[in-house]
């Protein structure tokens, strides 16, 4: 009896439930637009009213608190983000893709399980802890090793970001290699290829797009990372001349300064403009990575 009643109720409520589910499904689109809208809205008055876009992007002076002449130039911040990200990418892309190849093609089953767990744990370490490690552990190490006066700099931030983005690159790279049909492997081995020849001549070209997307997303994560670079790259707004110069990134600037600004003031709004810039950058990276992967699928189907 109870069963039939609950079923009848279920049938009556079904359209309602299905519409709720549908709305939740579409909510992702809503949230992406909402994020863009709200971040943009807070920065818009400044962006359209008082901001000289060319000066904003090419002026290396970021002096929001200057009593003499307030300047909002993000060039040095972009240079900071670019330098740290470039170093991180230089280290993490080869390491991440190498690890992906090793885990997917060379590694015995048992070791693979262990390595995947370790990499997953590495990915789980919060960014503030990475920042802490940069600040407390790597900092004295770098001073000791290089004799630099201060150890929180591009090198430190780059190393930390590399360690943070390796797990992403590795797991996505491994997925890309796994997606290559086994028939390719069998054909190559039947022709007498060694495992390295198989990887280099067959798998890499076949999984090229997936590997590229993995690298892109890893780099995208480095660009957007906040707490780790806030703590590990030092706090000097400057265009860096060497690896041992401290820099300030776009994300760290927002994190460091938003708390001190007056709501609705120029400084407050310009930070939201930087946020919009970051949002656009991440959209571009993600859409590009997606298109790259889609391109691969399209070719395989066609």
């Amino acid at each position, binding site marked *: 009896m109870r069963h039939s009643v609950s079923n009848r109720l279920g049938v009556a409520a079904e359209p309602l439930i299905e519409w709720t589910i549908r709305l939740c499904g579409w909510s992702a689109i809503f*949230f992406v637009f909402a994020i863009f809208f709200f971040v943009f809205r807070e920065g818009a008055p400044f962006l359209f009213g008082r901001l000289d876009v060319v000066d904003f992007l090419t002026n290396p002076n970021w002096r929001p608190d200057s009593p003499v002449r307030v300047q909002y130039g993000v060039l040095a911040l972009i240079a900071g983000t670019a330098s740290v990200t470039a170093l991180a990418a230089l280290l993490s892309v080869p390491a991440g893709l190498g690890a992906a190849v090793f885990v997917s093609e060379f590694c015995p089953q048992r070791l693979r399980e262990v390595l995947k767990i370790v990499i997953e744990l590495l990915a789980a370490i919060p960014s503030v802890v990475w920042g802490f490690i940069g600040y407390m552990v790597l900092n004295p190490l770098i001073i000791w090793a290089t004799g630099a006066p201060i150890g929180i700099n591009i090198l430190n931030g780059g190393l930390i970001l590399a360690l943070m983005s390796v797990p992403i690159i590795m797991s996505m790279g491994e997925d890309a290699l796994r997606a290559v049909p086994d028939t390719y492997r069998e054909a190559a081995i039947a022709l007498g290829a060694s495992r390295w020849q198989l990887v280099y001549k067959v798998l890499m070209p076949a999984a090229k797009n997936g590997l590229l997307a993995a690298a892109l997303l890893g780099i995208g994560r480095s660009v957007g990372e906040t707490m780790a670079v806030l703590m590990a790259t030092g706090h000097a707004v400057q265009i860096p001349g060497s690896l041992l110069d401290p820099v300030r990134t776009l994300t760290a600037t927002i994190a460091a300064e938003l708390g001190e600004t007056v709501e609705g003031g120029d400084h407050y709004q310009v930070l939201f403009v930087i946020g919009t810039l970051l949002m656009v950058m991440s959209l571009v990276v993600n859409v590009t990575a997606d298109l790259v992967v889609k391109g691969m699928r399209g070719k395989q189907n066609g």
Partner: protein
Amino acid sequence: MADAAALAAGAMTDHADTRFSAGPVERRKRTVERIAATLLGVVTCSLVLPLAGIMGVLLTKAWPALSWSFLTQNPQDYMTAGGIWAPLVGTFYLVFISLAVAAPIGIMAGVYLNEYASDNWGTRIVNMAVVNLAGVPSIVHALFGVGAFVLFAGMGRSVLAASCTLAIMTLPVIISSTREALAAVPQSFREACWNMGASRWQTIRTIVLPNAISGILTGVILQVSRAAGETAPILFTGAVFYVATPETGLEAYLPYGLWDRCMALSYHLFTITTQVSGASEELSYATAVVLIGLVISVNLLSIGFRAYLRGRKRW
């Protein structure tokens, strides 16, 4: 004597390779293979080393400060002494409220994408949105939280606003993990149920969800660790430097309401490391160890759960 041994060894290798003698090309191939395998292995293992090294350093430095009372005391003397109870409670609030918001929406969105959505451009846009939502930098989430929850929705800087911000951040990952869990349920289960005359929703409720629920939960559990560790999204939406807590009474143990600002473990680690002068190193190391321990134990739990499920799976 030695010559004879060498001759014998030579004869043996000759014997092994009589039919396929290794020419220069083959030898080169083998050398390259060995070099590649070693190099890749070294690279991969060099990723394991930092994890072990970091854990080692953190644990040794934190050891003197770690104790039961470190967990249960509130911060004292301008955060240069005492424990981490209040930030710990704040983190628990943030994690559970954010998951209470994100989990239902995320799970239903996953159900939609795996069970209802047909393969058309609308679905492609939804997928694209999920991917992009996952890629939004955490500091942009913070700005969104300020613009949408703190100001527009009028929540002010509060536990609620910070939790909502975290919820939006964890949402895309919950959606994708739910989807994976649902996709692992064989299509034949659904077909059998449809053939019995069940509707789409009845099938989902009685067949698909019960078979996928543990996989879905694994994904949600994983987000506990992500939400606990995130700092940037809560920076300007609800987490604060310090909130004074009463010495005694219930308030000392459960210091925050939904509309209060709160301390959080991740932000606390940031402040006592970089902002508070005079806080002992041990204290911040110990805080880092507690945070990392929390996150890693949740992850191990989820990994163990997953392994258990894989072992139990009958199809």
